[in-house]
């Protein structure tokens, strides 16, 4: 570290390559090369967090606003039954967790995970001054911002920037058609994948000259000086309502080049790994289960991914809630049971944690259409082999005098859950990622 040349170079790299807008357009592995130098110089701060034995976090977004009260039911609480004359769940149908809370009868998968000691439920999770817009509240959860602040990067994007900058693009894998805003970061990271069989460039004939030409279009030109960026000021990805959009100074073409490059770099590896683990384990027929099955195959095959992202929709139950939400929760619980069984059989369960989240819970009182309108705080589910089994966070009061605008008030800030996961599971300092300290919960044994 005393070598002045090295220091200069390190500073040079930090200011021009890794710190600036250039990272947007530089292919991942070029950035990675420099990142390795950077990491060497900077020690733990930029430790490259890959490796086959590293912990993995699987996020499951429950899109639409999952009603917490009909999922984790306060089955001895008269306020609950009074507020929901047609859609409450009778106490005798509940799958009890303790003498006041129990699960929706459709959640048998969750119940067996709970009984096996693999499920933690964090009660009453939310944030101050809750926003009831799907899109704004999703954005708040994805960026881990205060209600009145608009952040550009996702909370996992900031984790990538802090802990694994310049990593292989497969460090973060989204199973689905749209990259989540949570991944948006200063140096964009992560791939989207739906079907590993088609995740490649398919040449048209026996002679593979077409593939050769295709590849050459994305191979970085050694003569191109990657340090010359002109007057491009340090930009990042800007988001509108849960979506990655371009910010001034970046072009759609830059984004396309970068994505093409990441597609090319990741496609060979994905296919190789998916090929190692055939999909022969038993999963339910739902789309969610199929997606979790793909995650299990990628984990089993050794993809160096730290974050997987899967989503399930259908929770916006303004009408006929019992039919809709119960079916979604059953699908979710059954898929999770199959997924954790599969991971256990492959001896990978002990390095996987699953976290569910939804943009908000729903109003305590049902509306006139056997449904519920947008609300606030709700429980979160954390699943893993080494979880502190049980119920965390204070159970929220349903006493009408304690409600705010008809909504449950939160007891645990969602960023406390994020902070706990970052610190206890991903083994990184949450402060630079969340920007301010949040009290943590004991989630891992």
């Amino acid at each position, binding site marked *: 570290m005393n070598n002045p040349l090295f220091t200069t170079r390190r500073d040079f790299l930090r200011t021009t390559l890794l710190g600036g807008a250039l990272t947007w357009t530089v292919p991942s592995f070029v950035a990675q090369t420099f990142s390795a130098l950077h990491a060497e110089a900077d020690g733990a701060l930029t430790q490259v967090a890959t490796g086959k034995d590293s912990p993995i976090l699987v996020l499951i977004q429950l899109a639409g606003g999952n009603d917490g009260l009909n999922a984790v039911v306060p089955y001895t609480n008269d306020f609950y039954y009074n507020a929901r004359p047609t859609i409450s769940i009778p106490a005798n149908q509940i799958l009890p967790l303790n003498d006041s809370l129990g699960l929706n009868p459709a959640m048998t998968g969750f119940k067996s995970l709970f009984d096996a000691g693999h499920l933690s439920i964090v009660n009453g999770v939310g944030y101050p001054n809750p*926003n*009831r*817009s*799907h*899109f*704004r509240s999703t954005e708040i959860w994805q960026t881990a911002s205060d209600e009145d602040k608009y952040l550009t990067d996702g909370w996992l994007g900031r984790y990538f920037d802090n802990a694994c900058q310049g990593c292989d*693009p497969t460090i973060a894998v*989204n199973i689905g*058609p*749209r*990259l989540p805003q949570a991944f948006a970061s200063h140096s964009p990271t992560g*791939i*989207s*994948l*739906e*079907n590993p*069989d*088609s*995740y490649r*460039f*398919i040449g*048209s*004939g026996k002679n593979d000259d*077409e593939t050769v*030409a*295709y590849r*050459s*279009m994305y191979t970085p*030109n050694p003569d*191109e000086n990657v340090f010359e960026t002109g007057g491009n000021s340090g930009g990042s990805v800007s988001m509108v*309502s*849960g*979506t*990655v*959009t*371009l*910010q001034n100074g970046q*072009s*759609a*073409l830059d*984004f*396309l080049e970068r*994505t*093409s490059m*990441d*597609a090319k770099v*990741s*496609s060979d590896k994905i296919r190789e790994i998916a090929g190692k683990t055939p999909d022969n384990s038993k999963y339910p027929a739902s*789309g969610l289960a199929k997606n979790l099955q793909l995650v299990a195959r990628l984990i089993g095959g050794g993809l160096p991914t730290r974050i997987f992202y899967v989503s399930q*929709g259908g929770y916006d139950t*303004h*009408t006929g809630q019992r039919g809709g939400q119960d079916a979604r929760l059953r699908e979710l619980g059954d898929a999770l049971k199959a997924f954790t069984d599969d991971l256990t059989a492959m001896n990978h369960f002990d390095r996987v944690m699953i976290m569910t989240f939804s943009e908000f819970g729903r109003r305590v009182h*049902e*509306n*006139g*259409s056997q*449904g519920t*309108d*947008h609300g606030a705080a709700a429980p979160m589910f954390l699943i893993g082999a080494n979880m502190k089994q049980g119920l965390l966070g204070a159970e929220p009061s349903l006493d009408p005098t304690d409600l705010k*605008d008809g909504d449950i008030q939160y007891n645990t800030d969602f960023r406390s859950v994020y902070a706990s996961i970052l610190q206890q599971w991903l083994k990184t300092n949450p402060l630079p990622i969340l920007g301010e300290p949040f009290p943590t919960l004991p989630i891992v044994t």
Partner: protein
Amino acid sequence: MNRAGFGGTPADIETLRKMGLYRAVSWFVDYDKIPDPTPAPDWAHPDPDIIARREAIRNAADPETRRMLQQQQNQEQTSQIADLRYWWIRRMALGSRPFQEKMTLFWHGHFATSFEKVQMPYFLWLQNETFRQNAIGNFNQLLVAASEDPAMLIYLDGANSHKDAPNENFAREVMELFTLGEGNYTEQDIQQAAKAYTGWGLSKDRLRYEYHPGNHDEGPKTVFGQTGNYTGEDVLNMICQKPECAPFITKKIWRFFAQDQPPPPIVDALSHEFLAHNFDLKHLMRAIFQSKEFYAPDVIRSQIKSPVQWLIACTHQLQAPLPTEPMSLVMLRQLGQDLFQPPNVKGWDGGIAWVTTNNLLDRDNFAAALVEGNRVPLPGLLGQMRGLLNSMAEDGLMQIAPVDVTALFTAGDLSSPYSFLEALQARFLNAELKPQRLASFTEFLKARSPIEETDIRKSIRLIMCTPEYQLT
């Protein structure tokens, strides 16, 4: 041509260029002068038997019969929605009024509803016609029409809202997504407005809109600080009068037609025009297409093609027929734009959200199928739909004929790699490749003289795999 419509051949573009800006814009915008004889799908009318069939399902003698009847109904709806999707794609690609269809597509994404919840394809067709008829009319009238449309009443639960317990779904989204934007209203405005919308509903046979005075909350409501016994239409008119409404719509339109990040001065100027002409959309669109900002270098070719734009523009550039119905629909679904089934009430996000590593690879591989026809094996390309596709393939529905690529270039174009590359870029990009990719093409073509049909084919496919090709 690309932005007001869905692209064209070099000859089409040349015809338009010769008209000059004023006449070309008029050709698009004054489309009511062009006849459009497209007939409605033959099932697109209220189905008087639907009540009887629903009753039959409900009263089925045993669960087995009920399941069978329900399945029949689902199959019919699935086949109608597929029919409707292809009917619209054909109209966009081949119809006489491309701009009217482009605008209809914009409104479909703006006032988004989905087959998943609405289920009745007839209602989705009806709503599509509402958008088409009002595509460049008065925005306030369109807002009222779209709000009272059966598809919207079902999708955002208006049809289930009652004065005793108003449903807030529509009341929230109409302000957040359709008119004002988040932050420009209060929770109280939503709850009070929800009361005003009560009474809107469907007729007993659930085939058309009907007002139910008994369901309407007659009491006073306080919205935006004003109190009165408002109806739903009153509140929609009040929303339009809010200063945020015109800029919100103008910005979204500029974003759809021109540029991902609309500069505030442009939105300001255009929304003043829009307001001064009492929400006349035709006036606004003419102003946009005639503005010099619309043709600024950083605006032209700055957008990522939507999947619909990508598919239709491909067929024009290749001078090829649209792929068959199942093939077209499968491609659009895989690329993330299932018509009549946007991801949520916000519609499609557009912009760079169209592109992920996965669907860029899909675009590259579909390009091969379009250019080479079924000579290209597409192993596992279509994921979970493979079973369905195999059965369709047996019926010959998945056939794509190889493009007659020699018809796309003159002998002069093919006389040298250099001139070929020029012609290739002119037809498929209307712009130049970046130097590195130009070098790849030069390398690819250098040993190929004369340029054979198979070289042309591969070159077309390759240019369709460039980042530049994804822009419009």
